[in-house]
């Protein structure tokens, strides 16, 4: 059906009245705000309202002078590196496990979605508790196995895998729904025919299902990558109480990710110009991921 031909032809301003609220709202909160944040990134802006145009200095500072920008970027990439394969693995396993006649399917579906409807803050608190030095169950288990107590949130090397595991735990229901949908959309007679020809289930998965759901896999990869770039809540919760007051903004010793770095710059340091520049650089990276996705699987909307 052609979209353009749908609907009652209407003249005059009536159609505009219907879209007016959205037009005004997105005009203010999206379009003007976007222009504003671009402008901010060229300003030396702080809380006291003094803002002077400094050209590309904020970007120059971030790319060549700041000791934290690349740290945050590397941590974010590290998070993506941990979380993307994990998400894919969990989603694919659940998708295949749920495929074809499963008893109590709606029960499983319900259970896997519980983490997804739970607040990220609460979930992060639970994980922080599980990995806490004295009271956490993880250190207790390790202690019983004869290992020494580990301070999990002291360094990024351990904080980020924990955060990524938590993220994968939270999105397992989403991954299941995405891959189950993709596998279900494959015509049944394909695998039936292969099965009649004597193909084993593993062969069917390997040679028929996996190639056919490749676009979904790729879509989910990019989706997870983009989400990984925005990881914030969990880092915020994990870093509470961990960051020592040894520098004004609490950058030192913290597991910075890019979104968290932006947050600290803007809302603890009131350096809105630098924060905007950071956010725009991150935005450009995410946009390139989307463009790559578009090239490979064509048009598909991935809201950021």
């Amino acid at each position, binding site marked *: 059906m052609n979209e353009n*031909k*749908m609907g*009652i*032809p*209407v003249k005059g301003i009536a*159609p*505009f009245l*219907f*879209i007016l609220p*959205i037009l005004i*709202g997105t005009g203010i*909160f*999206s379009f003007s*705000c*976007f222009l*504003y*944040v671009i402008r*901010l990134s060229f300003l030396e802006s702080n809380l006291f309202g003094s803002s002077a145009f400094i050209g590309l200095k904020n970007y120059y500072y971030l790319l060549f002078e700041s000791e934290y920008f690349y740290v945050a970027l590397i941590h974010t990439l590290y998070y993506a590196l941990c979380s993307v394969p994990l998400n894919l693995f969990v989603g694919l*396993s*659940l998708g295949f*496990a*749920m495929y*074809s006649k*499963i008893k109590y399917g709606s029960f499983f*579906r*319900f*259970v*896997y979605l*519980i983490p997804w*409807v739970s*607040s*990220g*803050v*609460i*979930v992060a*608190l*639970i*994980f*922080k*508790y599980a990995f*806490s030095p004295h009271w956490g*169950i993880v250190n207790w288990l390790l202690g019983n196995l004869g290992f020494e107590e580990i301070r999990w949130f002291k360094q990024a090397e351990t904080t980020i895998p924990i955060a990524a595991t938590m993220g994968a*735990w939270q999105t*397992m*229901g*989403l991954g299941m729904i995405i891959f189950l949908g993709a596998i279900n959309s494959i015509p049944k007679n394909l695998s039936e025919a292969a099965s009649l020809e004597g193909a084993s*289930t593993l062969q069917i998965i390997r040679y028929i299902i996996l190639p056919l759901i490749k676009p979904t896999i790729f879509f989910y990869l990019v989706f997870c990558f983009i989400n990984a770039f*925005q990881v914030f*809540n969990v880092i*915020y919760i994990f870093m*509470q109480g961990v960051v020592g007051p040894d520098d004004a903004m609490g950058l030192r010793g913290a597991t910075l990710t890019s979104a968290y770095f932006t947050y600290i710059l*803007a809302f603890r340091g009131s350096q809105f110009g630098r*924060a*905007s520049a950071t*956010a*725009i650089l991150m*935005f450009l990276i*995410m946009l390139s991921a989307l463009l790559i996705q578009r090239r490979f699987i064509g048009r598909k*909307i991935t*809201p950021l």
Partner: protein
Amino acid sequence: MKKSLLTLKYLVLIIFVLVSIFPYYWMIITSLCEHEWIGNPTIFPIPPYLGCFKNALFDYPFLRWTLNTFIISISGTLGCLFFASLAAFSFSCLQWKFRDLIFYVLLSTLFLPAFLMVIPQFLFIAEIGWMDTYWGIFIPSWFSMITVFLLRQYFFSIPNEILNAARIDGANLWQIYWKLVIPNSKIVLMTLFVFNFVGQWNSFLWPLLVTQSNKMDVLAVGMASFGGDFNITYNQIMAGSILSLAPILLMFIFLSKYVSKGLEMRIT
């Protein structure tokens, strides 16, 4: 299907059920213990200690946080659905010049990530004096282009003939919207309502920025402040977590099919 494979399937499913449930189990156990647990963990504390729940409820403005969360989730979601359905109606059921062009220009805002937009939005809200107010929290969420997009997709399935017939019968556009299109979209509206409500209830960064006083906090922000307070023990935090998860999980028990439907809508 071969039996071994079926066993493997159920094994995977059950392992993931345990993985999914265990943190919640652990949360409940901890919240029912009187002291922060140091020695060996218990399967279930007998007798259960309810003092942590009492602390969470009465020593902190917990009920107020719940009320705040409820207010912003309801107002945010209803406003969002109303404005989105109005716009989606115009973008699908009406035919006018530049309709699709304007739609796609607006849709492009989906690509703006939250952590980029909160900076200017925060400064704007501060500028107009909406800091620490309910509307400062929920009004920006009224303008959700993803909701417009999903509703528009759905509205396209309403046959042109019906719309035209209503028009010929003398209905004006508002009547077509309110008496024909909306009643016919109850299920999809319900799905989006549940979906957006959950999202609003769990939103964290924006309420964190806009609220300043402890009384205006939403549950997520309040619970985060629990996490940063060294005087609060983990069993109290877990009790608070249970209390703040309870409303949304209760809702999910009854409306879970709308959540998975909403997910399917969003990703396909």
